[in-house]
Every structure is written in structure tokens, then in C-alpha cells.
């Protein structure tokens, strides 16, 4: 597989064209905006927490294929997860896209997120892949500031 097809895997292209959970959640108890000033990508993450568990999660925004697919797969992956599990998955995902760590046996399962393994070969695209995750963190923390993957 070439680096390019490894970056734009079928799953990523599919989610970029048909993003899942792509809507606002009315009365979401957490939401945050993310912005990548470098490319103008914008994302808003909405979520509902019940007893620290994400019972509903969605997103809206505009961006490249990598950032849109990342946000879409994030929402699929994290529905039903606890805040703590979400944090651990973010750490594992961050390691994956920056090429700094490999999934360890004891760590959280990346599952479908493994399709982002090609991103580490494209350092300038790491921010695209991680924007939604930084925004998620802001949403969970209830931070009013706009998240940035800078």
C-alpha cells in the first residue's frame, strides 16, 4: 500500500463523505468548538454525560477528509464510554497519529481508529486528525476557550 492510500483508507474516505452523528444535540450538557487556524478547519463536539458516561455524542463543522473522518469515528467510538476511557483512547490515538507509541496489550483498544495509522507519515496532517479530540477534551473539561490542535 502506498503512503497515500494508507493515509486515505477506504474507511476514512467513507466517513469523510458520509460523516456519522453529524448534527447538533439540543440541550447537550457539554459542547466545545475547535478551530485550526492554519487551515480554517472548524468542529463543534456535543455530548451528554450520565454518571460520567457518554450517552450521546455528535459533531458539526467543516474540514478536510482527515479531520471530518476523525470527528465522525470519534463519535462512533466514544458513545457509551466513560470519561476516563475516552481520555485513555485519546492518549492511544495521539500516540498512533504522531507515531510515538504502538498499541500495547494492556492499553485501550483503538478498534476502527487504527485506520488513522497512516497519518504519522504526514506530519502536517496530524493536527487535522487530532482537532476533534482536542475539542472533545475541551468539551469534557467544560472549557470555554476554543480548542486548537496547535
Amino acid at each position, binding site marked *: 500500500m*502506498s*503512503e*497515500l492510500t494508507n*493515509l*486515505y483508507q477506504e474507511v476514512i*474516505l467513507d466517513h*469523510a463523505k458520509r460523516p456519522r452523528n453529524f448534527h447538533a444535540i439540543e440541550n447537550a450538557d457539554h459542547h466545545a468548538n475547535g478551530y485550526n487556524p*492554519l*487551515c*480554517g*478547519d*472548524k468542529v463543534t463536539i456535543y455530548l451528554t454525560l450520565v454518571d460520567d458516561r457518554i450517552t450521546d455524542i455528535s459533531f458539526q463543522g*467543516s*474540514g*478536510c*477528509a*482527515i479531520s*471530518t473522518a476523525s470527528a465522525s469515528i470519534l463519535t462512533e467510538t466514544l458513545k457509551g464510554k466513560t470519561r476516563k476511557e475516552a481520555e485513555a483512547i485519546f492518549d492511544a490515538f495521539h500516540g498512533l497519529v504522531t507515531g510515538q507509541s504502538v498499541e500495547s496489550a494492556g492499553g485501550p483498544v483503538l478498534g476502527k481508529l487504527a485506520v488513522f495509522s497512516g497519518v504519522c507519515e*504526514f506530519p502536517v*496532517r496530524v493536527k*487535522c486528525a487530532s482537532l476533534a479530540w482536542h475539542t472533545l477534551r475541551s468539551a469534557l473539561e467544560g472549557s470555554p476557550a476554543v480548542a486548537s490542535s496547535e
Partner: protein
Amino acid sequence: MATTRDLLQAPVIEKPAPPASFDVRRIREDFPILKQKMHGKPLVYLDNAATSQKPQAVIDSLLHYYLVDCANIHRGVYLLSERSTQAYEDSRVKLQRFLNAAEPREIVYVRGSTEGINLVAQTYGRQHIGAGDEILITAMEHHSNIVPWQMLCEEKGCRLRVGPINDRGELILDQFEKLINDRTRLVSVAHVSNALGTINPVKQIVEMAHARNIPVLIDGAQAAPHMKIDVRALGCDFYAISGHKLFGPTGIGALYGKASFLESMPPYQGGGDMILSVTFEKTIYNHIPNKFEAGTPNIAAAIGWGAALDYLTRVGMENISSYEHALLTYATEAIGQIPGVRLIGTAREKAGVLSFMLEGIHPHDVGTVLDQEGIAVRTGHHCAQPVMERFGVPATVRASLAFYNTKQEINALAAGLEHVKAMFA
């Protein structure tokens, strides 16, 4: 010790060779970087509006300075410093001729056009623009011709006015003229838009403003690489350019200012070289241009830029202009006819830039796929976010040309875009 003043009188030793006929294959031989491959494909460099590549002559000049002529300027009584000073001031004379300024002392070295604009804002601006006054720009400015004025407005309570553009990306001149009023203290406009390629009718703008005694600054960063600039014919009061966009090194630029303006302006930064004498009671500032050049400048870059200007003079700016015009016409047709391409910026007068969207595909994805084909384009907002907003796009793909680009490279771009479309279909 030789001062700038003495040296400005001295003749420039190097005489440009007679103009060679324009042969792009021979030109490309002068730019070693273009021989490279990227991801196994020949490099197709189409990001010239961000920075230009450097001819061997410039690289040799930088090497020569550090190998043979390195010393500080305007300081030493020794031969090495004299040589360094002479080469540095020779470049100023080359810049004067390149821009057709009346005198070399009207050329102030700065780090780039951004600093040139900031210099005017912080000196002329702070001196002459006050609460309730207005500065007039256009809607197609680079951030470097927006933010320095906003900073001044914040400090002084003046107001930034913006001349609108039409759907082609052209300045709407009659509306622009209506924004000139009794409170306007300065007009500052791009000669060529970096995001759209639009050539503004700067001569007309200067006439409009001068009819009301309002000075005009022109941001020439994107114009100077593509056309002959004649500041006296334009009549502008200030003209800012960047070395690295003009085939010279990074970290050097020039601000042209009419001597009468520069003379009356306060200094920009304080320090060495900008003074005639210093005591704790009183400091006497140096003459222009040194008054604006505190501290040790980027000597090597200034000298290297001089080599770039010699090179451009040999090739001929008129030759460059006509070659590029034909290439841009070819590129506009070749790229514009691809289904799904929407050109952003279709002004009747354009230079060097082809900005576009590919339907349903984000510019960043376009850029990444093109890169794998060896094609370097810029994707993003091009430091002109208000322009992106005007056209309702978050970003564009921008292919920007230089005189070493070829039709074959445009064909490679067109083929690359088909590849992008196939991938994201």
C-alpha cells in the same frame, strides 16, 4: 570610515550583462533546487507567492560573503569592512534602480514587506494619524497590510476603512473613491493580491488620493516578482517589497519612501547605526536611510538580493512579465476547464496566481495528494482570511507561478487534479 552617504555616491562596479533571450530551459538550469525529485517525481514548484527559489548567482553571493567578505558594515577602518559595506550599499543602489527611485537614500532595508508596512505605521502613522482619522485599505489585503493598521487604530483611536471587491476579485474603484474623505490620512493597498492575483490600478489610486493630498503606501510584495516596478511613474509615497519573494534570500526587504517623507519621519527603532552622536543628554539621529536601520542588518541577505536583482535585470523584467502572462493564461484555461474546478479570483488584470476550489474536496486533501505527485502548491487561507470570507470558502488551493515554471508543469498539475478527483470520487 566610509559612511552610507559616501558610498551612495560611489559607482556600482558590476554592470548587468546584455539581456539574454528568454529560454525557460536555460533559466531552470540556473535554479539548482528545481532539479530535485519529491516522492520520486520531478519537483513542480508552484508556491512562488509564498517564497521564490533562488538562482545559483544568489547562493554564490551568500557563500562569497561568508567566505571572503564577512565583516560588519559602516564600522571598521579595515579593508574587509570596507568591502562588506561597499557590497551592502551597492545592493541599495541596485534596489534604487530596480524600483526606479530617485535616490539610493530612499531605499530603507527592512526584514521584508511586512516590516516595511509596520515601519510606516509606527513612524509616519503614529506621527500623523490620530483619533477619528481614517486609513483606507482594500478587501483583498494580506494580513500584513491589515494588522499593523489595526494596531495603530487600537493605540490612536483611528479607524480602518475597507474598499470592497467584486465577485471577480477586483477592487470596486468608485466605491473605493467614495471612502476617501476629509478624515483619510493614508491609503495603503496591495499592488497584486497574494490570494487572488488581482492587479490593482495603483496608479489611479495614487492619483485619487493625491488629489486630496493623502499619501499612498503600496504593498508590492506580490507585484515586484512579476512586473517592472517604477515608483516614480506610479507616484506612490511608499512601496514595500520582500527579498525572498524576489528570488533573493529570506530576512531582507526594502521600503521605498520619498526622501521628503523619510526625512520628516521619526526613527523606527533605536540603536547603533541609526545615530550620528549619542550622549545621555541628547542623541542626534543619522540621515536617511540609516535613521531607520538600527543595529546590524542582514548584510549577507542584502548582498545576495543584489545578486538576484542583477540576475533579474539580465533576464529582463519585461521578458519575465510577458512569459508569465502567457503561462498564466495557459494555466487558467487548463485548470479552469477541469470539471469541478471553481476559480477564486478571475480579475481581468491578474499576475502569477491561480486560486481555486475542487468541488467537494477540501484544499488540504488536494494539497496532500498533489504533494505525492511532486507538486508543491499552497493550501489554506494564504494569510488573507477576509478574502476567504468574501468568497465564502475556508481555504483554497493556490498555484502561484514564477518565470521558471513551464507549460509541462501546468499539465502535471492538471493531471494531478484528475488524480485527486479519482481518489475522492
